[in-house]
Structures are given as structure tokens and as C-alpha cells.
């Protein structure tokens, strides 16, 4: 009952602050464009003709197999949704912890016979369900629309949606840590974006290390690479996964998940010990 109360509270807050509706509106717009702007004419398993926003597509090199077109198209969508999904999800959940820990509110929650860990993790689960529903709507919608339009059901795209969710959860753990430490909504939104951008070039950490004179700083770069989420590599490998060319390694996934989990554990410990 207590966990349920916290999950419902998270949803009601997201609904009232229009973050949920904003996420849904952006998703619906994307899906409508996909539904009505793209028209494909498929003949004998090949793409005979197509239009995008009413403009005829020029098919260079003959009529490509529709399987190949769908796979390429979905890999492009997966790359777009990776950035868009994480961006929207961070924005939708960034204010949760700062609103919880503000003076006058946190007292009302923590004076109840419920542990602090329960309160924080209950809200975390609420955010997980919120973003899972949104991503399921957005990615599921893209999958269903493309599949119905083409008759090609590429289930690997759904695995890509799972990867987007995993990366978001890693960022959510980080957001919770920032929220508990600072109580600031702007910081809880900006720092995950900064982390996202910082982690991108670290994919080339071996080249950066080789170019450095200082062994100490090369070590720092290597440590950062192993500690921070592997956003660039997971994004790249997610596209390859949709294309049927393999997927991200377990090391990439586990270290990214470990970062989020570590941040969440740290956030829980800080929240547990904090004086309000």
C-alpha cells in the first residue's frame, strides 16, 4: 500500500505538472508524422515507390527489398529515439526529488511510519513506471506503425527500446543523487545532460589516453570511461542491433547499469543520513 501510494503520487505529480502530458504530446506528434507523412508502395517484397510529406522518394539503384528498407529505417528511428527518449525522460523526472526534499514537504512524508529508503525507492519505482509507459508508447507506436505499413516485424527494434530504457535508468539514478544532494531541479536536469555529453567522447578514451603526456590524467580519463555510462557505444551498438549486426557487449551494459545503481545506492545512503 505504501509503495503503491508513492507510485500513484509520482504519476499524479507528473500529470499535474504537465510533464507526462508533454512527453505524450511529443510522442503523439512524432507518431502522427510517421503515420501520415510516410507512405510506401510495396510490390513483391520490394519498395516500388514512396512519398515523404507528399514528395516522391527517389529510389536510386532500383527497387530495394522492403526488409532492408525497414531495417535501415528502424535503425535510424532507434538512433533518434535514443537521444529524444532519454532527453524527454530526464526532463519529465528531473523535478521529482527536489520537490520531495524541499523544506515543509519532506517532513510530511518522513514523519509517517515509513522508512526513508522506502520513500525514495518508492518514488524511483514510480519514475521507472512513468518512463516505461512513455517509452513503450513512443517506441511501441513506431514499431507498430512501421510494421503495419510494411508488413515487416523487426522485433530487434523492441530490444533497442529496452536499451534506451536501461540508459535512462542509469541517468535516473544519477538524477536522484543530484536531487538528494542539491535539492535543485535545474541541477537535476542539467547535470545528466552534461553527463550525457561528457560520456560521448569517452568512447574514444584509448585515443585520448594515447595523446596525453601525463599518465595521471590518462588514468583519470580511463577511470571516467569505466565509471560513467557508455552512452556513445550503447547508442552505436543499438543501431547495429536493429540492423542485425550484433549488439552491445555485456560489459557495456553492466558498467552502465552499475553506474546508475551506484548513484541510487549513494542517494539512498545520503537521504537516510540527512538531517531535515
Amino acid at each position, binding site marked *: 500500500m505504501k509503495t503503491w501510494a508513492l507510485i500513484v*503520487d509520482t504519476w499524479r505529480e507528473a500529470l499535474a505538472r504537465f510533464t507526462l502530458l508533454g512527453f505524450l504530446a511529443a510522442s503523439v506528434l512524432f507518431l502522427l508524422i510517421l503515420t501520415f507523412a510516410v507512405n510506401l508502395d510495396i510490390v513483391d517484397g520490394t519498395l516500388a515507390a514512396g512519398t515523404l510529406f507528399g514528395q516522391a522518394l527517389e529510389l536510386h539503384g532500383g527497387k530495394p527489398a522492403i526488409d532492408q528498407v525497414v531495417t535501415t529505417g528502424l535503425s535510424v528511428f532507434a538512433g533518434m529515439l535514443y537521444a529524444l527518449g532519454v532527453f524527454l525522460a530526464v526532463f519529465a523526472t528531473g523535478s521529482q526529488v527536489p520537490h520531495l526534499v524541499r*523544506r515543509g514537504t519532506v517532513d*510530511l512524508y518522513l514523519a509517517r*511510519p515509513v*522508512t526513508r529508503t522506502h520513500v525514495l525507492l518508492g518514488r524511483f519505482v514510480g519514475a521507472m513506471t512513468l518512463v516505461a509507459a512513455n517509452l513503450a508508447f513512443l517506441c511501441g507506436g513506431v514499431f507498430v506503425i512501421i510494421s503495419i505499413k510494411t508488413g515487416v516485424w523487426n522485433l530487434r527494434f523492441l530490444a533497442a527500446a529496452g536499451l534506451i530504457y536501461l540508459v535512462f535508468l542509469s541517468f535516473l539514478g544519477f538524477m536522484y543523487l543530484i536531487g538528494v544532494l542539491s535539492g535543485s531541479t535545474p541541477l537535476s536536469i542539467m547535470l545528466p545532460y552534461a553527463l550525457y555529453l561528457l560520456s560521448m567522447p569517452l568512447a574514444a578514451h584509448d585515443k585520448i589516453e594515447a595523446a596525453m603526456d601525463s599518465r595521471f590524467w590518462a588514468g583519470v580519463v580511463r577511470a571516467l570511461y569505466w565509471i560513467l555510462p557508455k552512452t556513445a557505444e550503447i547508442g552505436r551498438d543499438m543501431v547495429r542491433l536493429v540492423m542485425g549486426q550484433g549488439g552491445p557487449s555485456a560489459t557495456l551494459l553492466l558498467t552502465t547499469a552499475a553506474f546508475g545503481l551506484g548513484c541510487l545506492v549513494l542517494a539512498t545512503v545520503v537521504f537516510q543520513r540527512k538531517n531535515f
Partner: protein
Amino acid sequence: MTIDVRGVTKEFRSRARRIRALDSVDLTVRQGEVFGLLGANGAGKTTLVKVLLGLSSPTSGGVTLRGRDPRQAGARSRVGYLPEGHRFPDYLPGGEALRLFGRLSGLDEAGLSKRIPELLELVGLSERGGDRVGRYSKGMTQRLGLAAALIDDPEVLFLDEPTDGVDPVGRRHIRDVLLACKEGGTTIFINSHLLSEVERTCDRVAILHKGRIVREGSVEELTRPTLRFRLGLDEAPGSPLPQVEGVAVAASNGHLEVSATDLGALNRLIDRLRGEDRTIAELTPMRSDLEDVFVETVQRET
């Protein structure tokens, strides 16, 4: 003891210096008692309540709430709290805010469906229970806060400035609710600036000054008769009084107010008046009210 505080000290670090908000506080509150904690702004009242509820940990010393450490979640079962400057989730209607905190208190849906309308009725918000908290006035929010504090029929109730921002009618309403809780055996701990409210509601009070308990006792004890008396003489006003060592006399609101250093000095004055064949029509011991006691105590300690 329902609340037991032993040698609690609480220090905060602010930049380079340490601020001692509570300094070796000892306090007990018995079951069914209404206890008032008085203090000027910054005296440490809210800090003490937060320590009592486990929201803040003491730097040293210990606290028990019904024999348990309040930092354990179970110790806060059937404990109500109305924080000062509380901010309810403004996106929820009043009734739903009560449902949220009722659920967090472990109440079931059937119990809540019965309890919420009762509480809204009790605090005079039954007409507005469906409105969002963000649209409530300060006084309405305060009454909703009281309802939330009462959601799980508390055995112990902590109220931090419960009548803050509430008009006189609302204050009386809140006082009536608290007296009903007292009748029901609830232990009540009140932090308040409104000394007249405390005097009317509390059995026992303590004065907190710069983090230390500087005075404690029942309202009766603290406001006990002083060595000040109202004197009425059956004669035309303005006649000079005899000079007696240890007695000071001042005119106040058409009466004479006599301050004596002890009862012997007072009796010497009476003897002198009777010796001059003057008729004493009234001699009434004056009680100091809680405000006098508070101001006097704080000034003495400053």
C-alpha cells in the same frame, strides 16, 4: 513517559563555524499530557521537534518516543505531525492529500474512505475537499495540515505553530479540536509563539532559550501567585501611603499595585495601614500570566 529527551545537543555547521541549536536538553512528556514549548524565534523549538520525530539526529544525547528510537519507522506509527511552514503537494485535492498520507501511514482504503470525510468535516473543509491544495488559503492549508496530522488517530501529536496564519475563529476551532484530542487521551506537544493559546490549552510548558530549557513546569506553577497584590482602600483616592521597607506601591488602572519582597513586608504595610485606622477593602494576590513569565525569563537569561 511518552516523550523522553536526555541531554540532547544538536549542532549545525554553517560555513566555518558551529551553531549549537540545542544544548543539553532534558525533557519528559507524560502520556495524555498537553505540553507547550515556548521560545523566541531561533530558540531551537523546531529543531527539537524534528529530533523528536527522527527527522534530524542529535549530535549527542538521546530521545525516545513511547520507549522507541523515533528514527525507526515503526516508532512513528500513530504519531501525527503538523510542521511549521508545511507544503502539501499542491497538485492534489485536499481529500487526496489526506489519502496519500493515510496510505503512507498504513491505513487501508476502506478505513480511509470513512476517515477522510470525517476529518474534513472536523476541520471545516468538507465543502473544499475536492479542491486542489494550491487553491487553499493559508488558514485552510493549516486546517488541512491538522487533518493530515490526525489521519491515523494519533496517540502522540506534534504541532509546530498550529495556529500560524489562522484567524481568531479558526484558532478557536483548532483549539476545540485539540481539546477533543486531549479528552481522548492523545499526548500533544505544541510549539507556539501564541502564549495565550498555550496558556489555555497546555498542562505543562517549558521555555527554550538559545537551545536550553530555562524554565519548566505546569501552567499553574509558572503563573502562580506572585508577591504582587491589588490593594483597595475604602477612602478617596490620592491619600499618601506609609513608607514601609520592602514594599513598593504603584497606581495601576485605578487600583494600587503593591509589590512586596516577602510576606513579612506586606504584613508590615497592613499593620501600618490598620495602625492609621485605614480600612482595607481589597487585597488580592496577582498571578503573572504566561507572557509575563516568558518575557521575564527570556530577559533574565539574555
